[in-house]
Every structure is written in structure tokens, then in C-alpha cells.
């Protein structure tokens, strides 16, 4: 395919969203229009990935050698493909979920535009382009957090905005350094730093890396910049599920991957103090996230804390600074997206059908909503890392990467310990909810859930698909792993 096609997945949703705000269609037609738009866009994106255009597409030049350009490489393909598959399903879910909300059109306008921007991050050819889309992502998604327009939501959106903009500022500093001290700003596997130009300034560069890690990591909720994520769970569930478990937060993780493997280069960082520090940051985030999730009783917030820890699983893989580590990060990026969106959708379905928000209100609800809770249980077991489900494979990869790294840097063994601690905490926070739902205490109030039932097909279909995917990938993921392995070795 010609590389001109690459522009479509980025621009189509943005234009479509803008068009929607002008058209003012009635709900039914709007939904149809949106679903078709999103599906077409996904189809084009996936077609691009299957017949990959090799050359870049330069849209315009900012100055001198700063291009605004798109290109599809292996890493970008994985992220783009993930987003392209999940978005239509999440949109379908959102139709039913948002039925009774107000201002739905403006919600869907921004929701769809976010799709294009996320694609932009996946397809960006260089740091400058990615940075621009990264900022844009903050701006289009901030409305989505604000959407309920309650005081809490507005405050949460403000927090989100401050954190993200602040983070981007850090990232911007690294952008400058890369421009000055790199051979190019185009992403190149293995890094672009010019060691001659750096000369004796290695320490400064490491410091810059650390800042950029934190800067891009804000979106991936690394410690201590994780505060915005649990707050942002006041947003409608389609947002928390798709954006705060996949698109936005994974953009952060994706950006860190780009930064580490495609700008600075893993070799440059391996074994330095910065390496130790970023590993520690990831570990602390994991411990923090999963411990807080156990403490939290609000269902959606509990899952948000779980997201914090799981995102850092990805980063932990990444910080192993090896192809195996990148493979681990990538596989968890994909698997976590599916299982977490599945669990969030379950929590959302509970909220939508029964208005129950807290875990201790779930006694016996599984018998009222069997489909939703089967999906939740399957996704939850996968999150814990029970073998036979997808999560086990990615956790295995992370542990394998850590064990490999541990030969040179014994500190990496600690990562495996952290991983297992977190798995235990995951078991606690998932299974307490699941056991409550399936095996209610005899003393619990059976009437509290009168009339609650499974939602309609628009919400059930995505849930069932995610559940099946989690099982299928858990039982046999070699074809996918093979692709990810070539990507992680930079030969895709």
C-alpha cells in the first residue's frame, strides 16, 4: 500500500467527530453513523498493518529537519492494531451505556476524535510528531473525564490536565536534547544518540532520560504521578475502560517504549544508575497500585488502582533493557488491554444495571448477571495470572525477562518478587469480589438486587468477545508471540 493511506486512520475519526458535532443527528442514526465510521477506520488501519507501507509519509516540515511525519513500523503496528480492534467494540458498548446520559453527542464527538489522536501516537514517525499527538491526546480526552459535569468530575479532569501537561513538559526537555544530541529524531531501533556529540555528558543524558521516563510515564501512571488515574474513574465507564485502561495509559507506556528502545537505546541505559532508578519506579508503582487496590472498596476505583500496577508491569518489562523485556512489555500491553477492558466493562455493566458501586454490595449478583460475571471472573483470573488465561503468558514473559536480566544485574530478581507479591494482591482484590458475587454469605440481603439482570447485547457482545479472547490467547498464543518477538527484536 502507498504510505498516503496512513493519514486516513488518523484524520478520518477527527473529521468524522467534527462532522458529527455539526450534523446533530437523532440518536439512532448517530450511533449507526459512528459505528460505521469507526469500523471503516479500523478496517483501513488493519489493512495498512497487513500490507505495510515501508516508506514514510511527510505531512509538513516544522523547521529544518523537524518533520511532521507518519510511518508504520512493528511497534506502532502492534499498538495501532490493538486500538483498532478495541475501539469499535468499546463504541458499541458506549451506545447502550450512554443511553440515559445527557450531552451524549458531544461525548461521542470527543470519544471518536480520541481514536484518531491515539492512532497518531501509534503511527508517529519521530519524537516531535509523537509529542504533538501526545499533547493533543490530553486535550481531546479531558472533556471525556469532565463529561458527568459533577463537581468531582470537573476536579478530576483538572487534575488529569495538570498532571498530563506537566508530564509533557518534562518530555519536551528530552525532545530538545534528542534533537541536539541525536543523529536524527526519527525512531530507530537501538537508539539515535550520537555518542560523539554527547562526549562527557553521559550523566546529563541519563538524567534527561529519567525526566522523560517520568514525563511520558505520567500517562502510564507511574509513581509518584499516579494520582490522576483513580480520580478519573468518575468518568463514564466507556472512558475509564477504553481510555484509562487502553488508549491513554497505553500511549504513555508506548511512548516510554519508543523513548527507551528507539531514542536513547537500551544499551545506553543498561546498568547505569538511571536503569536502577526506573526499575525501582516501576516496582514501587506495582506495589503501590496493587496494595491500594486491595484497600479500595469502590469497584471501579479498585480496578483503576489495578491498572496502575499493571501498567507498571509493562514498564517493568521495558526497563529490563533487552529484547526479551520489550517482548514482555508488549505482550502485557496487549493482554492487559483485553482483560482490563473486560473487567471495566463488567464493572460498568453492574453500575448501569444495578447502580451498585461498591464491592461489598455485590453479594450474589453473579446469579442475576451471569454473563457479565462470567466475563469478569475470566478476565480477573487472567489478571491474577492463573495459567490457562492470557495474563499468565505475559507475566511469564516479564519474569523470564527479569530472570535473564538478573544474571548481570541481580537487582532484577527483586522484580520477580514484586511481580509475585502483586499477583497475590491481585488474587485478593479480584477474588474477594468474584467470590462475593458467586457465593454470597447466607446472611446477605437477597432483595437488594431485585430486578437486576444482564444488560442487552450491545454491552454483552464485547464482554463475551473479550472473555473468549482471553481464554484463546491463554491456551495458545504462539502465533501472536512470534509476531511480537520479531517486533521486539527490531526486525519487523
Amino acid at each position, binding site marked *: 500500500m502507498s504510505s498516503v493511506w496512513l493519514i486516513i486512520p488518523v484524520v478520518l475519526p477527527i473529521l468524522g467527530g467534527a462532522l458529527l458535532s455539526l450534523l446533530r443527528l437523532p440518536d439512532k442514526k448517530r450511533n449507526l453513523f459512528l459505528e460505521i465510521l469507526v469500523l471503516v477506520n479500523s478496517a483501513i488501519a488493519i489493512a495498512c498493518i497487513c500490507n505495510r507501507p515501508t516508506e514514510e509519509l511527510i505531512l509538513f516540515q516544522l523547521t529544518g529537519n523537524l518533520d511532521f511525519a507518519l510511518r508504520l513500523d512493528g511497534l506502532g503496528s502492534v499498538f495501532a492494531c490493538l486500538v483498532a480492534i478495541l475501539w469499535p467494540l468499546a463504541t458499541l458498548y458506549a451506545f447502550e451505556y450512554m443511553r440515559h446520559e445527557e450531552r451524549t453527542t458531544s461525548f461521542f464527538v470527543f470519544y471518536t476524535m480520541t481514536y484518531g489522536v491515539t492512532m497518531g501516537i501509534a503511527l508517529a514517525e519521530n519524537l516531535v510528531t509523537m509529542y504533538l499527538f501526545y499533547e493533543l491526546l490530553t486535550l481531546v480526552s479531558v472533556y471525556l473525564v469532565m463529561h458527568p459535569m459533577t463537581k468531582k468530575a470537573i476536579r478530576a479532569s483538572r487534575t488529569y490536565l495538570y498532571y498530563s501537561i506537566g508530564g509533557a513538559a518534562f518530555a519536551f526537555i528530552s525532545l530538545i536534547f534528542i534533537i541536539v544530541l541525536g543523529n536524527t529524531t526519527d525512531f530507530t531501533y537501538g537508539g539515535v544518540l550520537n555518542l560523539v556529540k554527547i562526549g562527557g555528558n553521559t550523566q546529563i543524558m541519563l538524567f534527561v532520560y529519567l525526566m522523560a521516563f517520568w514525563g511520558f510515564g505520567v500517562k502510564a501512571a507511574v509513581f509518584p504521578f499516579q494520582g490522576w488515574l483513580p480520580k478519573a474513574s468518575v468518568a463514564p465507564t466507556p472512558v475509564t475502560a477504553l481510555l484509562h485502561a487502553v488508549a491513554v495509559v497505553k500511549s504513555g507506556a508506548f511512548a516510554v517504549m519508543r523513548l527507551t528502545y528507539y531514542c536513547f537505546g537500551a544499551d545506553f541505559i543498561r546498568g547505569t544508575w538511571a536503569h536502577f532508578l526506573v526499575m525501582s519506579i516501576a516496582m514501587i508503582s506495582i506495589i503501590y497500585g496493587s496494595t491500594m487496590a486491595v484497600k479500595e472498596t469502590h469497584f471501579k476505583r479498585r480496578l483503576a488502582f489495578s491498572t496502575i500496577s499493571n501498567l507498571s508491569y509493562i514498564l517493568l518489562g521495558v526497563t529490563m533493557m533487552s529484547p526479551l523485556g520489550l517482548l514482555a512489555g508488549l505482550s502485557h500491553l496487549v493482554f492487559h488491554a483485553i482483560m482490563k477492558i473486560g473487567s471495566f466493562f463488567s464493572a460498568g455493566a453492574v453500575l448501569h444495571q444495578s447502580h451498585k458501586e461498591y464491592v461489598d454490595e455485590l453479594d450474589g449478583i453473579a446469579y442475576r448477571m451471569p454473563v457479565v460475571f462470567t466475563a469478569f471472573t475470566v478476565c480477573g483470573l487472567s489478571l491474577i495470572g492463573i*495459567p490457562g488465561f492470557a495474563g499468565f503468558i505475559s507475566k511469564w514473559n516479564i519474569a523470564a525477562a527479569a530472570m535473564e536480566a538478573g544474571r548481570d544485574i541481580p537487582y532484577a530478581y527483586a522484580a520477580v518478587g514484586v511481580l509475585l507479591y502483586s499477583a497475590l494482591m491481585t488474587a485478593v482484590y479480584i477474588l474477594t469480589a468474584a467470590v462475593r458475587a458467586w457465593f454470597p454469605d447466607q446472611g446477605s440481603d437477597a432483595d437488594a438486587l431485585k430486578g437486576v439482570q444482564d444488560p442487552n447485547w450491545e454491552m454483552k457482545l464485547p464482554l463475551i468477545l473479550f472473555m473468549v479472547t482471553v481464554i484463546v490467547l491463554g491456551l495458545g498464543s504462539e502465533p501472536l*508471540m512470534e509476531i511480537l518477538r520479531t517486533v521486539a527484536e527490531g526486525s519487523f
Partner: protein
Amino acid sequence: MTVAYLLGAAILLPILAGFLLLFTQGKWKNRTVKCLFLFLVFVITTIFSVKLMLVGDYQFPLWKLTDTLEVLVRMDHLTRLFLGMTVAAWTLGGVFAFEYMKHEQKEDRYFGFYLIVLGVLIALDHAGNLVTLYLFFELMTLTSLPLVLHNLSHEAVMAGLKYLFYSVAGAFAALFGIFYLYSHGAGSMFAEGGYLADISYTGSQGMTLLVLFLMILGFGTKAGMFPMHGWLPTAHPVAPAPASAVLSGIITKSGVLAIIRVVFYTAGADYLRGTWVQYAWMTLTLITVFMGSMMAYKEQVLKKRLAYSTVSQVSYILFGLSLLNVSGIVGALSHFVFHSVVKNCLFLCAGAVIYKTGKTMVKDLKGIGKEMPITMWCFTLVSVTLVGIPPTSGFVSKWYLATGSLETGMTGYAWAGPIILLLSAMLTAGYLLPVSILAFFPGHQYDYEQVQKREPNLLMLVPMGLFTIAAVVFGIFPGTFMNYLQKIAMTVL
């Protein structure tokens, strides 16, 4: 490949039948038909398993999760031993439950999960590498959870969660070891005698010993080994009696199986002999043996007493293994079989008493032997066996354990082992025999006029009877069986 299909059928049949039961909960009009259906499943599964046991040794990958992670199945003597015990106990426990579960609610759910666990256990016994072992170990924990919290009282649900979290924590500790071994070129299959001493294994010795200890500790959680025993006395008694029977008799033993696979089929006895791991492991098992008996001695609820007894008895097995010599292994394996038989029987007897009279405390059992003579005779006979009075089976296994302990020649431990075993045997007598004495000799204040026959029906009596006969026969004619175990022990060292 017919073996693969047969194996698939043996694993899937109970699992699918279990799911069928779960999805048709409460829709079975005729209870007899349901029980016949269940019985049929048990019988066919047993036939399949026996056929598998007769095929001869085999090993092949059943499935690939990824290129490096495969589900490998393996049939050897150890598999036969555990598989045979599992299906036998499961079938008898199932038959007992046909009657027992009449007085519990939601029996369809119970039987559904009971069958699913059976399938998982058959697969677990077949595990041919660490990942397969871990896979089915976790699934076993999850699918047996509903058996523990079956009656859904607050106490049961809490006990269930305790069981769950202890088990999962243990499994994760073991998983650390699995990660380590795999990433250093070991663990992808079991082999008699282990292979960590081979050159191809690249792990450092210090780290390897640490992870082996973690694996023993982690898998030992299921076997109720100190300090991870806390869940057992809480979880086993709250389950319905036939479930407590298989939980104590069989599921705790999967921890034993896993440890055998790690120590003798992955690490190798030579690798561990004389290291701190052996000393630490031995110490923990001896502590558990003693502590379990003590706790059982002072416990007044019968099923809880039996659960503490399990804590103590399973560690006899682990103690035997930790000796790392032939006598120790023979003692451990024979005690595995004997204890499974005995403890299944004891819990079934306790269940029969609860079913007929509702009595759970030991002190309430005064004179129960007059009302339920056959039940209490079974109880008494297997108690005597467990205490280890010759010529019963318990004596045989303890003899081997003591010999093995003396053979190690480890300063202090060689003597401490037999002494603690002896002490614990006395305590065992102290916590089991008074039950029988109370039951048959209620004293002169007992009102003999009021005695009414309350013997349960054949569905309950036959399983108990068969277990009792097995326990007694093993004790009187141990020869062939012990030779067989000796053969296993020789190959794994």
C-alpha cells in the same frame, strides 16, 4: 495417539459432566437418575484411568501454550500411585455423598465442582513438567474452593477465602522457583533422579537452593506444612463431610506429589542432601508433626480434630521425603496411601455421625457406638491403623520412616525424627482412641434404654467399609506393595 484421546477423555469427561450439572442446577426431577448418572461418570472415569495406568510409561506434549511453555503429560509409577488413589477415593467419596448431601442444600453445585476437581486432579497427576504441574495446581485450588465454602455460612465463606489466599500465596512462592529454573535451562520435563547437577543447568547454587526451598514451602502449603498450615484446620472442617474427606485425603497430597516432582524429578536427591535446605525442610516437617498432634489432642470438635491430625500426618510423609533415602521414600509413599485411606474413612465416619445425629463435639459422642456400631467399628479400626499399632498399615510406614531417619546419620536429626514420630504416635492414640472408648464404653451413667439403632444405609456404609478393609489388608499383607514402592524409590534416587 490413542493414549492421548484416552487421557483427554479421562480428564474431560468428569469436567464436562461437572459443567453439565452446574448448568442444570435444580432441574433434575429424579434424584435417583442423577445419582446413577454421577455414578456412571465415576465408573467410566475409573475405567479410563485404570486403562491409562496399564498402558505402560509414556510421555508426550498434550498442548502448547507458547513455544517454550508446553503442557506435558507423563505416566510413570508415581502417576499410577496417585492416580489410582485419587479415582478410588473420589468414587467412594462420591457414593457416600449421594446419601450425605441429602441434608445439604444446592447439592447439584457440590457434585458439579466435585466432578470438575476430579478431572483437574487426573490431569495434575499426569503433569510431566513444572508448568503443567503449576497449571493444574492452580486450577485445583480454584475449582475446589466451592467445595470448602459450600454451605455459604459466613464462617464457611471466610474459611474458603483463607484457603484460597494461603494456597495462592504458596503457589506463587513455588512459581518464583519455576521462573528461575526455566530461565536457567531446567524444568521443562521431569526425569528420575533430577538433573540440576548437570552441566547444562546454569543457575548458581546458592540461588537454586533458595528457590528449591521456596518451592518446597510453596507446594507444602497445600500439604499443610508449618508455617503455612493455618488454612487447613479452618477450611477442612467447614466443608461437607465427603468433601472434607477428599480434601484431607487427596487434595493435601497433591502438595506431596508436587514436592516429590520438584525434589526427586527436577532437583535430584543428591543436589539437596546435606544442604541447609534439607535441614530446614526436615525441621519444618518435624515441627508440623508435633504441633499438629498437639493441636488435635486439645481440639474438641471432631472434624477439626481430624483436620489437625491431617496437618500432622501429611508431614509424616514430607518428613519421609526430606530424608532423601530409600527407606524414607518408601515410608513416605506408603504413608501417603495409608493416610489417604484412613483419613478418608475417618471423615466419612464423622460425616455419618453428623448426618444421623447432628453431633459434632467429641464429648457428645458418648455411647454412639451402641447406636451406630458399624460406623464406629470402622472408625476404631482405622484409628488403630493410624496410631500404628502392629500389624496395621500405619506401623509399616512408620517403621520405614524411623529406619530411614536413622539411616541418614545426620547428627541430632537421625534420633530426633524417631522420637518425635513416637511422641506423635502417642498423641495420635490420645486424640483418636478416646473417641472410640467414649463411643463404645459410655460408662454406667449412660441410659441403655434409650439406645436406638441409627446406622446409616449402605450408600454410606459401603465406602466406609471398603476403606476400612483396605487399611487393614494393607497392614497385614504389605509385602508386594512395599516391594513396588521400593522399586519406585530406587529409580528416583
